[in-house]
Structure formats: C-alpha cells, structure tokens
C-alpha cells in the first residue's frame, strides 16, 4: 500500500492535479494493482541477459539531415496551440 504522501509525490512527478477524492481512490487502486504485480518477485530472472539477440534488433538509420515539411502542415499544427506569436508557441512563465 502506498502512503498518501507517496501518491501526492507521484502525481507531482506525473504533472497531474488530483482532487482529494482522487488521491484516496488512487491509493486504494494502485495498492491492489501493485500487490498483484508483486507476483513478479516469484520469477527467477537471475540468468536473463537483457542484451540478448532479438529478431527485430535490426536498426534502420537515415542521414541526420533536415527534411523540409509542407508549410501548410506546419501552419495547421501551430494553429492548434492555445497561444502563438509568429512561428513560436507562447507559454506561461517557467521560473516563479
């Protein structure tokens, strides 16, 4: 079971504002999910190498060059932001 303080701290790390009621419910829900997940401790993984060769371990790389984008698409994307100035997106102050 997680403590209330732990739930509040995780919510802060996750940038989620939770209500008092949500915190309480989260404590209960996460508690029972973590109890269930703890069954993983029964598995012996001491022999497992994480870098084992995989069928899909092939890399597809491309040159690190700028690929120009359709200006219309860029405009459409920028216009979804709540505030823009020219081609920049406006944000609230970062340091307070």
């Amino acid at each position, binding site marked *: 079971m997680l403590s209330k303080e732990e*739930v509040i701290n995780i919510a802060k790390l*996750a*940038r989620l504002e939770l209500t008092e009621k949500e915190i309480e419910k989260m404590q209960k829900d996460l508690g029972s999910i973590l109890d269930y997940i703890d069954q993983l401790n029964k598995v012996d993984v001491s022999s497992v190498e*994480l870098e084992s060769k995989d069928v*899909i371990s092939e890399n597809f790389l491309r040159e690190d060059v700028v690929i120009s984008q359709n200006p219309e698409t860029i405009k459409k994307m920028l216009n*979804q932001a*709540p505030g823009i100035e020219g081609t920049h*997106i406006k944000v609230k102050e970062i340091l307070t």
Partner: protein
Amino acid sequence: MDFAKKTIKEIQDGLAKKEFSALELCDFYLSQIKQKEKGIDAFLQVDVGGAKKQAQIIDDKIVKGEKLGSLAGVPCAIKDAILVEGLNCTSGSKILENYKAPYNATCIDRLKAQGAIILGKTNMDEFAMGSSTEHSAFKITKNPHNLSKVPGGSSGGSGACVAGGEAVFALGSDTGGSIRQPASFCGIVGLKPSYGAVSRYGLIAYASSLDQIGPMAKTAQDCEDVFKTIIGSDEKDATSFPKDKIIQNLDLKIQGLKIGVPKEFFGKGLEPKTKEVIESVIKKLEKAGSEVMDVSLPACSFALECYYIIATSQASANLARFDGVRYGYSGIKNQESGIKNLFEVYSKTRGKGFGDEVKRRIMLGTFALSSGYYDAYYLKAKRVQALIKQDFQKAFKKVDFILTPTSPFPAFNIGEKIDDPLKMYLSDIYTVPINLAGVPALSMPAGMDNGLPVGLQIIGKHFSDLNILQLAKLIEKL
C-alpha cells in the same frame, strides 16, 4: 442489392463488371450507419461528405477506364487513435476533443492510395487503455450480438462497426489485445501484426514497444487484403520493416501441420464453454491431419503483471506530450483555473483532461520508473519479458503455430467490470503475452456461447503473419 455480406474481392469484381457503383456502395454503408448507430454507437465521427467525394472519384476512374487500387471503393472505418487528415482525432479522450489531424498516418496514406473509402472514426477506450470501450470519454459502444454486452476493447468501435455491418473492414491498434479481444467478442477476424510489420507513424502512442496497427474484418481473406496494403517500411517509423521480411507459404496445408497447445492458456479462469469451443476446433484440425502437441510457455503466467509495468511506464512517458501547450485541451483557456505558471498549465490541463483509467496508468508508470523503484519494477519486467520471448522462440522450434482462446470468456455485461481495474485487466490475460513477445497473432470466430461469439487465437513466429492468415482461411473452410 445486399451489400452487407460482400467481401473486398466481391466488391472489386462488382465494380469492375459495373454491377454497382462505388457511390451506391458508399450510400448503402452510410444508410446502414444511420440505421444502426442508435443501438451500437460504434462511431465517434462519420464523414458523410468526404466518403461520398472519395466514392465519386472512384466512379470517375471507372468511367475513364483508369486502373483501380486494390481497395478501390471499399468503405472502411478507422480507430480514433489513427490520424486521418482533416478529421478530428480524439483517441477517446477529452484532452483531444477538438484536435484536428494535420496529416495522415502512413497506413491511411496507403489505404487511400489503394482507393479505400473512409467512412469515419470509431470509438475506443481512452488512449487505448481498456478492454471494453467503456473508458471512452464520449460514449459506450454496444456489442451488435447483444446490446447489453460490451464489444471488447480498446478497438471496440472498430469491432462493433464491422460486426454490425456498418463497414467492410476497420483498422484497430493492439498493445495488449486491443484488436484481438474485440474481434473475439464481436465474432470477426482481427490481426495483431508482427511488431515492425506496420508503420506506427500517425498512431497516437500508448506503449511504443508493443503498439501495432492491424486490420479487422469479416473474413481472413479481407484481413489479408488490408494487411498487404498497410505493411512495409516507412522512414518515419524506424521500427518498421520492408515488406519482404514477411514470409508466406502458399502451400500451407492442415495435413502435417504442427500445432502447439500451451497448458498455461487453458487453466484457472477459463470458462468451460469457451474451452469446449476451442478444443473442438483443435480436434477438427487433428482429424484433418494436423499433429497436435503440448507446448509450455511458463513465463506467460506472469505476462499480465509484466505488461502492466512495461505498458504503463511507456505510457507515462508517451502521454507527457499532452501538456496544454501545443494542442488539445489547455487549462490556459479555462478562466476559472487561475493558472499562474507553466507547472500549473501542465498539472491542471492533465488533471482535467484525462479520465480515471488513464490517470491510473500514468501514475503506475511514473511510480515504476521513479528513482529507487526502477530496478525492482521496470528492469524486472524487462527481464521477465525476455523470458517470455525465449518461451515462444523455444516453442516455435517444435511447432508451426500455437492455438489458444483469445479471451477466457465471451463478451461481458456493460458495467460489470468497470469499477474493478484488476478484473478488467484479466480479460487480456491470453493476449498480452503476444505483444510482449512481439510475434503476430490473429483472433477468428470459432463458435458461440449462448449467442455470443468465442474467438480462437492463432499465434505464429515473427513475420509469419501471412501464414497465420493462410491457416485462418483453412480453418474457416473446416
């Protein structure tokens, strides 16, 4: 003319012989939607104008005698996690309620290039997190076989619209069973392709190392026709592979086929009737000359625990992009929120924009990745995942395919599991191991339990997708 039963091939033939026009076919499906949506609620958005326009273009091509694509005039529906330029794309979430897709997902470009007609976007659990579509922020989709039951999830809208005759095929996405489980519940065919077979570009990410887009349709042949259209490498998804990686054995026969049956998928929690239906299909295969043998996948007993760490961890990182700064709902627009700084833009936007299940999974993932817990949770889960992969590799040295039930039970009642997250998670117990292993798997109708479809899951080795489809076609004929 009754279009509802027509397969992709029959549609192609009919158009070529001018038995009907693409617009007639499109109008038929639009009227089906109009009639049936009141009961089923599969769609979040229907693009009547766009669909008709696309159909008209196909008809013009036919008149001019131009060459048609392999899906020309075929009306389809797209899960709302996949971007279709110009249409809203919500991923079932309030946080993206007014988000309009500025470009097409690669699979959509490929469908359109072959002439498919996009009818609309289908309902889903918010950000694909759920097994019943009840976690959609907008509506509850019902199972066409029984409107008091769920269609499964998270691609429940896609499953229900195909089963209800509202589209010829649909695209879904599958991270832990989200194509196969609704295909099973709705009595249709759904393929979760090999990881890397289909580009994920333009799919709103849930857990990137597990997500795959795949087809859902009435028949295995229809699934194959769609699958062949959407596969192949894409420079916008570095995990996508060239088409020729996918093997196909056209001579595949039931006789002499080695079928593996894992006891881990037939134990506690499996409903007797579901077990009976699946075992009867396996018996039929054996009678037709397949060699059926036991295989063991011991690490799969821990797949669900492993999945809920890996998937939620990746989700907590992926969903960080919904921050109220660039798109979607933003707390800034809400005067009452009294936002003072950027931190509050993030936390208030996300606190209001996300639903309960999404919050739960973000919290779980954030916890599993947090300092002091990373080794005990995420790394441990990655190691168990490696064991699961090894289990499948070992089994596929012995057998050609593995057969299991898709879900331990048929469609459940609306509201039955919504208040108990763990109970809901258990409906994916037979599907999550496959995503963790990265291998392809398909669900197909195998029989009925009290008026509800039971799905058979066929699992194959990596990139054997077309062979799985081939076997499904053979089983359909048994």
